[in-house]
């Protein structure tokens, strides 16, 4: 891909994906990887950061005799998601304006 994704945008994507459904490290990595080219070791620091900022919380669920850690979006995370959507729309508009060429300089 010509355009690379920065850490802020990746954080926003992870939040948005988790907002639709709680998920766990391995599945989330596979899901994100299917859409965006990331290395498998990229997501842990991102999840940790989102957790520290209070946008994600975790809970354990027993699967096949061991624990699986699920990540869920908090209320603060949902508000954050909403901000991302608004900001992305504004950003997209600027870039579209440049690409399509109807921006007044």
């Amino acid at each position, binding site marked *: 891909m010509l355009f690379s994704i920065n*850490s802020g945008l990746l954080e926003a994507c992870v939040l948005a994906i988790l907002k639709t459904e709680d998920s*766990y*490290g*391995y*599945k989330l*990595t596979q899901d994100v990887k299917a859409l965006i080219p990331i*290395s*498998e*070791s*990229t997501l*842990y*620091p991102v*999840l*940790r*950061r989102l957790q*520290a900022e209070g946008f994600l919380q975790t809970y354990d669920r027993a699967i096949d005799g*061991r*624990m*699986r*850690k699920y990540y869920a979006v908090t209320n603060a995370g949902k508000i954050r998601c909403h901000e991302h959507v608004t900001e992305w729309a504004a950003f997209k508009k600027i870039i579209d304006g440049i690409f399509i060429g109807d921006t007044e300089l």
Partner: protein
Amino acid sequence: MTRDEFLFGLEQRLHALPRDERVEALRYYREYFDEAGTEHEQDVIRELKSPAHVAAKILAEYSQKQTNLSAATRVKHGFRGIWFALLAIFAAPIAIPVAIAIGIVVILMVIVGVVVIFAFIVAGFALVVSAVLSIFVRPAFFVFAIGAVLVIYAVIRLMLLAFSKMIFVIQKFIQGL
């Protein structure tokens, strides 16, 4: 390399982290291997590249977190930020001589920075004291001394800013590997 060797290597490289941070990271990657299943063990190891690669990213993230902590504890966490940035450099999968060279440069810059800032602080105090003593005797010197102290203060702030930028660049560099 097996899964256990990988996790052991990761634990070794994370030993400088606080216990809960290390346990958390290891738990995540242990679970990651569990979910992938034994049949995909080698795929996961190949994808994760090496314990060093994974550890560098975790240390860089922790370093950044320390640097960003509240202003009240800035100096202490600032130094922790530098320290973990150094650890991240050494954990990073770059050639050892390169890591040593970058590490030495960072350490020397920190030493030089600390010495220079200390010298400025001492000079600042001396100026304040002599200014106060000479306030009625030599008013012109008093004004000069106050000006000099303000300049010194500005220089110190600039140097601290330069430091935090330098750490930020190192963190970004390691996260990009």
